[in-house]
């Protein structure tokens, strides 16, 4: 091919390119439509599968038998989702502003409903996964409704224990972290203790905690606090110890005293690190909470889980797991929101 050919491409190429461009726009529009309608389609499919396929799983006699046909929660949930999806799709048609939002969330919602449908099919409809370990979604939801008051109470007690343990652990961790980060001598003596005691999972102290604390709530609080204390201390210490010296130099030339240097320079400068410790501590606190509740504390979601397992009520075990997922995820979200609010001055942080 000569240079001239390269310089002036034949006109026909332009025409060919213009048509795919049109097709692309049309395809984009089609994709948007498909995305907007996908939750409704998924809900409809899951609902039809549930209503029209015969049940193969043979249910033993349970509390679920007493539910009247219209009280079964799964089809009600699907119908509600179907209606919501249709309204949302219509809203997106009416207000173009909503479309990006819908485009983002609709496939996720549709995926969730497809998962529900698969769950229903593999358990209740085809009996591929056996009872009593794998009940269908209808039974799990019914279990949740059946035990709603005790589940509510368990969640409340778990929240209370978790928050008291977390608060104590964070407070202690911040104090020891600031002391160890700021004072060389405290670090000299404190670090070895941290290195030896820190890596032991807090749950290994369950026997000790049960001896030391007469009250199981106190024992649980202490265990969770211990689990939270370690990462918060470590990250706060390293955060404070690694504050750029230049900030202290600047503050000193501005006439800052020691209190200002610690609380107005070192602490805020180390906050990004501290928040990593807070996140690690929150994860550790979930683990410790559930272990503490299953072995010692006689209340809460962990206790409920163990209790229902004892009766082979797996529907209710799953119900508790779903509640835990929502519960823990909400707390994580809250901490992320707090982080975003406190660390607005930072650029480029991970979104939750």
């Amino acid at each position, binding site marked *: 091919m000569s240079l001239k050919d390269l310089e002036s491409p034949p006109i026909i190429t332009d025409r060919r390119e213009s048509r795919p461009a049109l097709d692309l726009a049309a395809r984009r529009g089609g994709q948007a439509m498909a995305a907007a309608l996908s939750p409704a389609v998924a809900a409809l499919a899951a609902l039809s599968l549930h209503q029209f396929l015969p049940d193969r799983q043979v249910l033993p006699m349970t509390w679920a038998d007493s539910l009247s046909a219209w009280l079964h929660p799964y089809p009600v949930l699907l119908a509600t989702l179907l209606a919501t999806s249709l309204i949302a799709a219509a809203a997106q048609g009416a207000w173009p502003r909503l479309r990006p939002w819908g485009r983002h969330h609709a496939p996720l919602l549709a995926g969730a409903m497809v998962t529900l449908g698969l769950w229903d099919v593999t358990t209740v409809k085809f009996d591929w996964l056996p009872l009593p370990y794998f009940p269908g979604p209808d039974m799990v939801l019914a279990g949740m409704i059946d035990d709603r008051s005790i589940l509510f109470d368990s969640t409340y007690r778990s929240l209370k224990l978790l928050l008291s343990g977390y608060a104590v652990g964070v407070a202690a961790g911040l104090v020891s972290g600031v002391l160890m980060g700021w004072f060389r001598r405290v670090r000299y003596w404190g670090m070895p203790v941290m290195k030896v005691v820190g890596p032991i999972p807090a749950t290994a102290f369950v026997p000790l905690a049960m001896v030391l604390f007469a009250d199981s709530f106190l024992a649980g609080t202490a265990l969770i606090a211990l689990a939270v204390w370690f990462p918060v201390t470590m990250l706060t210490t390293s955060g404070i110890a690694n504050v750029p010296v230049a900030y202290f130099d*600047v*503050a000193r*030339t*501005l*006439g800052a005293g020691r209190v200002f240097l610690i609380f107005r320079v070192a602490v805020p400068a180390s*906050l990004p690190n501290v928040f990593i410790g807070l996140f690690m501590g929150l994860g550790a606190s979930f683990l410790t909470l559930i272990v503490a509740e299953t072995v010692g504390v006689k209340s809460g979601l962990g206790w409920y889980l163990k209790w229902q397992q004892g009766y082979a009520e797996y529907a209710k075990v799953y119900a508790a797991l779903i509640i835990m997922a929502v519960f823990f995820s909400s707390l994580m979200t809250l901490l992320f929101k707090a982080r975003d609010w406190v660390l607005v*001055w*930072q650029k480029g942080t991970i979104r939750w």
Partner: protein
Amino acid sequence: MVSDVATSADGEASSLLARDVGKRFLAADGAAVQALDGLSLAITAGELVSLIGPSGCGKSTLLRLIAGLDAPTSGELRIGKEPIAGPGAERGLMFQDPNLFPWLSVRRNIEASLAARGTLRARRGEVDELIKLVGLEAFAEVYPHQLSGGMAQRAALARALVNHPKVLLLDEPLGALDQFTRMRMQDEVLRLWQARGTTMVLVTHDIDEAIYMSDRIALLTARPGRVERVITVADPRPRQRNSPVFLELRAEILERLHFAGSAEAGSARAETDMSTADGSPTSHRISPDKMSHRRPRQV
């Protein structure tokens, strides 16, 4: 240089005296480094003096000593009649890096020293004035990472000035800025200096900047640093960067720094500004530091 000490104005509270100052510190490898040795310099109240010298000659060390961030190993440092013992709000220090506290807004950064000294409530009004003075009204509530290099340096200047320091120490404050911003900032610093009568000590690598701004220029020797010569800039302000006096002085300083006669010295500076991939300005400049290998043997 000894005569400079003799002419120091002792009566002025914001005059600055360094007599026979030495500073030795341990390098990372454990070797002792003599950064300054027998350095003497007297700066009268309200004067603007530049420190110029090869890289590593202890210019920044001297500023840290005056700021009180470090203590000299030998010799004496005084502000007026007071010996310097530790940092104090009457001596402001501005670094090449603005070092704004990233967790505070521009306004809160400027207020920081008032907050540290418990005088914020009484002097909040001055902060607004100062923000206006450095032209950051529109950015007062913004966080430092949203500022450009020049704006950040202006905020750092305002922060250093809010205390009304008697002495303002400037450690290559404009070194990281692009050429145009730097020239504009030079005028702004001069304007503030004239308005406030602050004594200023400016460490710079830029000979033109030193001539453009200073009353006097102190040339420092290579490590261990001491004042080799003090040059008075007799050119009245506002100065023209291409006036005969200016060019003459530049030639003299270049000669003092042993650049005269080399091919580069004729053009003095070949400077190009370019941006790195991340958009931060860099400047490539032929300056005395980068050429320390040309230095002749010590006499």
